[in-house]
């Protein structure tokens, strides 16, 4: 039962690297030409350990993933896809405002008959 600190912290850091806030911090660091990145290592590690431990203990982010775990059946699928234009010279690999994996955030409500 008694585990060392390292045992607890290492998996946490692994979990943290998948946390939504982390890539933004890292991206901020690299945007300043990357030369200051080593100096951010200390603060980033501090934040990572703090958030990671807190999350492992408090589990404030845990919930029932009902949108995946509920039994559902889908039928009568109708797809309508039309090309409306093109974009060139995009810097990002993903489109702006992409939300196809963000199922919980609501968008404009349509009236469906």
């Amino acid at each position, binding site marked *: 039962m008694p585990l060392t600190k390292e045992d607890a912290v290492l998996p946490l850091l692994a979990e943290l690297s998948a946390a939504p806030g982390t890539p933004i911090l890292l991206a901020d660091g690299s945007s300043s030409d990357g030369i200051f990145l*080593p100096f951010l290592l200390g603060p980033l590690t501090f934040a990572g350990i703090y958030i990671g431990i807190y999350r492992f*203990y*408090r589990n404030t982010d845990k919930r029932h993933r009902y949108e995946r775990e509920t039994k559902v059946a889908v039928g*009568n699928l*109708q*797809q*309508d896809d039309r090309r409306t234009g093109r974009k060139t010279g995009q*810097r990002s690999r993903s489109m702006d405002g992409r939300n*196809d994996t963000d199922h919980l955030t609501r968008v404009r409500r*349509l009236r469906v008959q």
Partner: protein
Amino acid sequence: MTLPPEEPRDAHEPRPAEPAGSGGPVPPAPQEPAPPREDSGNRFIDTSSGRDDGLNKCPRCGSTEIEYALGAKALVCSHCRHTWNEQNAEKLFGLDSSIAELQGHTLASGTADVREDLTMVTLKCQGCGAEVVINAEQSVQARCHWCRQTLSLNTQIPNGAVPDALLPFQLTREDAIARIEEFAGRRRTFAQRRFKEEFVPENVMGVYIPYLVVDGNMHAVLTGDGEVTTREYTVTVGSGDNKRQETRYDADVYSVQRAFDLLVDDLTVESAERFDARDNSAATNNILNAVQPYDVENAVVYNSHYLKNFTSERRDLNVRDVDHLVEEKFLSIARAKVQPTVRRYDRGVRWTGEGVAVRGTRWVSVYVPVWLYSYAESASGDSLVHYIAVNARTGTTMGSIPVSHPRIFAAACAGGTIAGIVGLVVGLLGFFA
């Protein structure tokens, strides 16, 4: 509460292109007018089983000395030792009929509005004729203090305090204690000292928590934009010392629309305000939410004897209190289900419109079993209550442990300092290289 066997049919032919301009009108769904949501259109399923005498007797000897025995996973009559379980609620009440056929709103009688004015209920004891007042706020079961008959509020329609069905405990208390010990044991280092000193997993309580279980038959429509990469190339930017290579992408933009029928089976929502997962201000209710799912399809017809030796929380949220939440959950499910159909958009999809036409729902009130360890973070009255919960059907365990912030701070400082020194050395070497 069972899905019909016919699984997704093939996609229809794509419709002919509409006049230009994305964000156009949503195409009409396969014709079927949405039913009105008025109460008048509701259908009711009577789950009271005609036991309005308030008594649940042993079917063999008629005694009311009955308890739920975890060893036998059944009700046991302490008089004649007869052992039995109530019937499967789904089958008995016909809740397993096809969801695709659901029209309008079907409400089992246990989901009727909880009447605030009826917290005190008088039951006439069928054993001796005495009148016994019980507080439905605190319990749904009581004893006649004259003849010791067990009385129960099985008159369901008047106040909706009694559920339609219930999932009996499967996991023993010992098993739950072991899981809670293990969960907390892995989280000792940074736990609040007072928590470690006062941690007594044996204080775990068996609690029945009320849920509303919803089946839904609906048509969903989603509209948005998607992008497909057509070219990936590198460009040279900057000049002189700053000259570097960067990647650029070209993409085709599409307007994307999906319409489909969706059948949802056994979606669960908390129906006791105290345990509502949306509110974590007084207790870590998300913990109770996180030990789901439950095998609701195995719920048995409610019988108050299942509650003996356990605590039960009364439902205080009505169907219309959670109606909005359920519709949002339907939308989330629709968004999750449509994801495999937009895989070709490798740059992603931005959904801008979503909607469901709910053709039919079916609501059932069910008690689910949880082994619950609770701990108030501080001694004062209004402190946060931390839960460690064990799903008493599946054993899924989740919890929240009060942390000692000074100790986390120390550990983070230590780690940050080491990393900072390493970073400093690497960075300075970079400067002077």
